[in-house]
Every structure is written in C-alpha cells, then in structure tokens.
C-alpha cells in the first residue's frame, strides 16, 4: 500500500485532490507533522489561493523544511498549481513572501493583454524525456506561473500569452501548473502513473 500524504496549505480546497486520489485506489491522509512529510512514500502539495498565504501556512504548520528536504532529495512529490509555484523563491503575487526556494526563480504574472485569471483547458506538450506526461488537455486556473524552465528539470509547456512551463519533473518530483485532479481521464491517468512509477526513494 502506497502511503500518500497530502499537505494542507490552509487555503487549498483539498476535497478534489483527496477524491481523485481515492478514485485511483489510494488512501490519502493529511500531513500533521514534519515526519509525515519526510517518511511518506508519496507527498502531494496542492495549492489554491495565494502564494503568500500558502507559504505562511507551511511555515506555521512547521512543514516547510521537511518539504524542502524531500524535494531536494527528489523523493516522490506532486506539487500542483500554487504548490508548483511554492517551489520557487518568491512570487510577484505576494512580494516579500518566501517560497521553498528549491528553484532559483521568481514566479511572474502572465503578460499584460492576456486574460487573467486563466481559467479552462489548454493542451500540454511534454518535451522529450518527460514520458510521465502524455500530450493532452489539462485544466488550469491561475494568474501566475514560472517564467523559465529551471535548470536540471524536464519540462512540458502550454500556451497562454506565449509558451510557458506548465509542468516540470526532476527525479520523482512532479510539479504541474495545471490541476491533474480536475483534468478528467487524462489527469487521473497521470496521477496513477506518478503513483505507480515513483516512491522507491522513500
């Protein structure tokens, strides 16, 4: 049985992610303390709401350092939407708030003249090497995103006011700007593949 731990960020509605994990046969539980984050075979960092509020919630809950260690060790982690953005150092959304800093970047807003928030389905195109993600359509709900591909990560891209990084993978850490838990059969199968192909490092 894979031990799936979901990190509550306070602002996120966890119900959709928990429901998606249950539909693929996982029995997710919520992280209560750092050891949950450190020891689980799989950790999910969901994210709805603002960068600053989510970053503050991780600190308050004492889970930040355990997450940094886990992602740095490339252990099976799925970071979604604001969860992906939290891997960066900072975000234009919440000046002064610090992310996990695993990626040396500042999250930026979509360019002027682009519809914000982006709400809806866009196609996701994995670059070669990112076999975990199949080409397909994913659901997005965001106003900010990583401006560039971080060094050492595989990438998938999507289009909204120009091409941008919509998912990245390093080791067993998968970060998606889209919501796999809301992306229909395509998203469900991505979650299944991530669960099945990872978790050995833990």
């Amino acid at each position, binding site marked *: 049985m894979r031990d799936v731990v979901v990190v509550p960020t306070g602002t996120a509605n966890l119900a959709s992610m928990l429901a998606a994990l249950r539909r693929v046969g996982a029995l997710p539980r919520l992280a209560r303390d750092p050891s949950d984050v450190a020891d689980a075979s799989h950790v999910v960092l969901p994210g709805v709401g603002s960068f600053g509020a989510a970053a503050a919630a991780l600190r308050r809950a004492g889970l930040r350092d355990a997450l940094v260690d886990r992602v740095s060790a490339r252990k099976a982690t799925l970071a979604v939407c604001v969860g992906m953005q939290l891997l960066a150092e900072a975000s234009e959304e919440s000046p002064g708030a610090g992310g996990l800093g695993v990626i040396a970047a500042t999250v930026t807003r979509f360019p002027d003249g682009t519809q914000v928030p982006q709400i809806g389905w866009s196609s996701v195109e994995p670059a070669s090497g990112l076999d975990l993600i199949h080409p397909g359509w994913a659901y997005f709900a965001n*106003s900010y995103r990583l401006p560039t591909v971080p060094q050492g990560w595989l990438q998938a891209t999507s289009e909204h006011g120009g091409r941008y990084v919509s998912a990245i993978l390093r080791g067993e850490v998968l970060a998606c700007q889209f919501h796999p838990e809301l992306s229909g059969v395509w998203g469900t199968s991505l979650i299944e593949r991530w669960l099945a192909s990872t978790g050995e490092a833990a």
Partner: protein
Amino acid sequence: MPARRVVPCLDIDDGRVVKGVRFSGLRDAGDPVESARVYEEQGADEIVLLDVSATPQGRAHNLGVVDRVRRVLSIPLTVGGGVRQVADAARLLEAGADKVGVNTAAVIRPELITEMSERFGAQCTVLAVDAARSDTGWEVVVESGSRRTGLDAVEWCAKAVSAGAGEILLTSWDRDGTGLGYDLDLVRAVCSRVSVPVIASGGAKTPEHIVDVLAAGAAAALVASILHDGVTTVSELKRQLIAAGVEVRP
C-alpha cells in the same frame, strides 16, 4: 487562450436536478450524481451545480449533493446557491467545490466578493448574475429572479471584477429555459466591459446558438435543458463546434 468550454448546469432542488423556464415551473430532470457522471463522460469541461431553492428558502446549500458529485467527478465543479458569507463558501469548497458562485448576497453586500477573493483567490470566486432586459439595457434580478434590483447588469459585472471576481456566470433571465438562443447583446456588452472569462447562460437550444455566443466573446457556454431532455449530448455539441472551427477540448 484556453479552449472554449461547454458547461452543463444542474439546477438542484431537494437533491434532484430540476429545470424550469425563467426560473419557474420547475420539473424533475434526474439524479445529480448520475447526470454529472454522464456529462463528464460525454466530454463536459466543467459542471455547475446551482441550489436554486436555497436562497428563496433562506437556507444554505445542500452540501450532501456537492460531496456525492465530487466523488465521481474528475473535472471542475462550480457551486452556487445560498452563499451569504465567506463561511458558506468555505463549506462548499470543503465539500468538494472548486469554484463558488455568489449572486444575491453580493448584490446586498459587494464586499463579500472581495472577502472570498482574498481568502480563496479570484480563480475560485465566480459572480453569478441574473440579468433581465430593461428600457436602458439589462437590470440585475435576484432571489431566483423574483426581485428586480434597479442595478445595471453590465456595470455590476465591472464592479464585481474590480472587487475580485475571477469569472462571471452571466444568465439571461429573458432567455432562461426558452430555447430562443443566448442574449448575444448582453454577452457582448459584458465581455467588452470586463477582462475575466464570461460563462454565458440562458436560451441554448442548438449548436448554432453555442457557436454564436462563443463568437460573441463568451469563454464558456452553459447548457441545461437540451442535455437534460436528451435533445443532444455534450459530445454531439462539441463535434458541431469543432466543425464550425471553434477550439474546444476534444
């Protein structure tokens, strides 16, 4: 730009899907969980769940229905009806909603939009507007259409976006349930005034109606009666949209 969306709407009364004409004469149209599941299979991009009797009856939304639909649904779920304060929205999100629509309560107290947007994000905060034609344009109607407010619908949408709404669910009261097609002038007026996505609602009967309203600027088309009554399916609508050159998720 994301693909245009086809969004089935389930009006819920007492745990059942219902549909009427101009919000009245509600008839039974099935089980919400089964309907949501079937529409997702057909290619729906999102499901909207509106508890149409919550506000008229002065009660909160039926959370049990939200929870049961969430369990089977792997596409976004927008829920509205009976949201009077931030705590109501929080309960709906906990029960499984991804976005929360607010209507009457925001007209009474517009700060509610800002409060929801700050707590949950603009992408989670949907302003639902019911607009009826008036001498000068469109007027906001509330309490499931039973009360006129004197508020200009287009201006209200603009104000709500400034307050933090990330999406507008725009229903034409005049067209709701009639099959006469969307109120394209209303959609154009609102889309030219706000920058956020607009979900057009009220009056869909044919694929051409949907093509027209997406061409008028709507990011998504809400459909209800024609799906519930088995006149067409989401997959058939999408086939026709693709044939008409509209980009949708296949």
